């Protein structure tokens, strides 16, 4: 996810990247369905990881659900982060009264059912087919492999935890300088959600990207690098 962005910050910063437990190159034996039934399990991992590395006042950069994990970690471990950079964050994906998250509860349920039915279609079948089909040799086999490798059951639970999460109440508690990167035409985290996050984190900065889609770190790394750099 950060392959095109992270190298730009190696000079001048110590960069730390990690895979959430259950994904990528993480040790699947560490996956515990009870612990990871809530975002809090991932939050504890992040805090533990930073503790192990002795990080204080660090700059957290997170994308999508990982952005919210960073927000929650900053609340649970004050002093850990001196700045939050949130790319495409969403405190809640499902609409709720006045709040527009972008999806109805039925749509999310349909997604979760779809993932259940199609674990073979995308976890077992997609991944190997894609691995052998790279026309960008600079992406090592290892990267594609790690991006695609996710146990179907874990993927299902992760999707459930992500898309049914509601952390709107946590936003006003954030007291760390925060920068929100909002994409254009992002169906996962629409612009109104980015604006919601901006309104509810006092003193936060909202940056509208020209990049479209939900993964600007992949589709428009240059713009993401420039915006992050401008706000360090």
């Amino acid at each position, binding site marked *: 996810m950060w392959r095109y962005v992270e190298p730009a910050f190696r000079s001048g910063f110590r960069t730390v990247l990690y895979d959430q437990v259950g994904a990528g190159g993480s040790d699947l034996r560490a996956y515990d369905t009870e612990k990871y039934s809530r975002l809090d399990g991932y939050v504890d991992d992040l805090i533990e990881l930073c503790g192990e590395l002795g990080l204080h006042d660090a700059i957290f950069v997170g994308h999508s659900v990982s952005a919210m994990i960073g927000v929650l970690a900053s609340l649970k471990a004050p002093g850990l982060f001196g700045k939050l950079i949130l790319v495409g964050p969403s405190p809640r994906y499902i609409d709720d009264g006045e709040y527009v998250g972008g999806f*109805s509860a039925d749509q999310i349920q*349909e*997604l979760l059912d779809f993932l259940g*039915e199609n674990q073979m279609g995308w976890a077992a079948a*997609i991944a190997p087919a894609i691995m052998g089909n790279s026309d960008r040799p600079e992406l090592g086999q290892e990267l594609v492999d790690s991006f695609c490798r996710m146990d179907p059951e874990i993927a299902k639970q992760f999707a459930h935890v992500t898309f049914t999460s509601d952390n709107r109440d946590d936003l006003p508690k954030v007291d760390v300088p925060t920068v929100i990167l909002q994409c254009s035409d992002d169906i996962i985290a629409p612009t109104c959600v980015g604006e919601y996050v901006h309104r509810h984190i006092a003193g936060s900065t909202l940056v509208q990207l020209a990049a479209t889609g939900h993964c600007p770190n992949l589709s428009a790394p240059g713009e993401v690098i420039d915006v992050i750099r401008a706000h360090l």
Partner: protein
Amino acid sequence: MVLTVDDLEDLYDNAPFAYVLMQPAGSIVAANATLSDWLGYARDALVGKRIHDLLTPSTRIFYETNVAPILHLQGAFENASLNLKTANGETVAVTAAASTRRDKADQTGLVRVALFKATERRRYEKGLIEAHKASQEAERATQRLLDAERETSVLREQFIAVLGHDLRNPLASINGGLRLLQKEPPEERRKLLLELLQASVVRMSVLIDNVLDFARGRLGAGIPLELKTGIWLAPILEQVTAELRIGSPDRTIETDFDLPRPIRCDPPRIGQLLSNLLGNAITHGSPERPVRVHADNDNARLTIWVANAGDPISPVAMEHLFQPFFRGQVRKSQQGLGLGLHIASEIAKAHGGTLDVTSTPEETRFTFIMPTGDG
């Protein structure tokens, strides 16, 4: 044959799959007639839409979180399961493949996307997933059966080993006693020997009863009861106590029975329960102190307890006390099958009652309580 431009156009427009050219971010640049037919949109209307707009909401999320990143990383994807939404709201299941146009002359990064109908394939996949789930469930059931079978097999081995050992002991004493009797010892000595022989026979018979009950219990039937009404328990409990006294003439057993009304129970089983508790108290209790037996019944319940002095039962042993083949720390010659307390507790359960234990440095007490109604 040489293909004309018309041939090539037809090859594109009327291909047996939907074919789309789009911007990397998903804006459709061109779509073939097949897609227009499937979805019920004019081809012009498709141009300018984003590929996301053609997907059902759930697969739109899936595309954005799982497929688009791969397209960005690799410039291609294959075998992506997606659902298209037609103009009148119907769903078309498709499998999608894509590759990015990337040569020196073309820097647009346009993406070719082919969509194949996958209704049957989706049904097939669903069937596979269900079959996979069913086979996992069957495997778990087999595993459970295997575990139970293994447990039984371990028990059976323990059982045979213990049985061989424990029946041989009293048999050896009977053998020795008989040999001494053949030498025609004096009257006093003979009487003592006969008492000891009698005790050994009682011990063997108790062991055999316990073994049979245990086997029945394990076979799933539980302890079989023959319930009788109007039973006066006092004589039955006296009889059991007397037998145990004969078996251990040097021990004191104090009784205190207050059983003023008849009850409904299986009398030999209650006798067996007391016999097992008393046997346990004699084996494990301090030899210098008496074993005490108490029984009373009121309108609601029968209580029988057996208490002995001596070292308390360790907390570890407490946990396993009522398990079959559990044997505390005693002299080898006194070991039983480790079934006595297990069977006593099974008898208690079969009567709708409980068997509990308290153990302190002052006293270890097993208490049996069962509801009696009015007998």
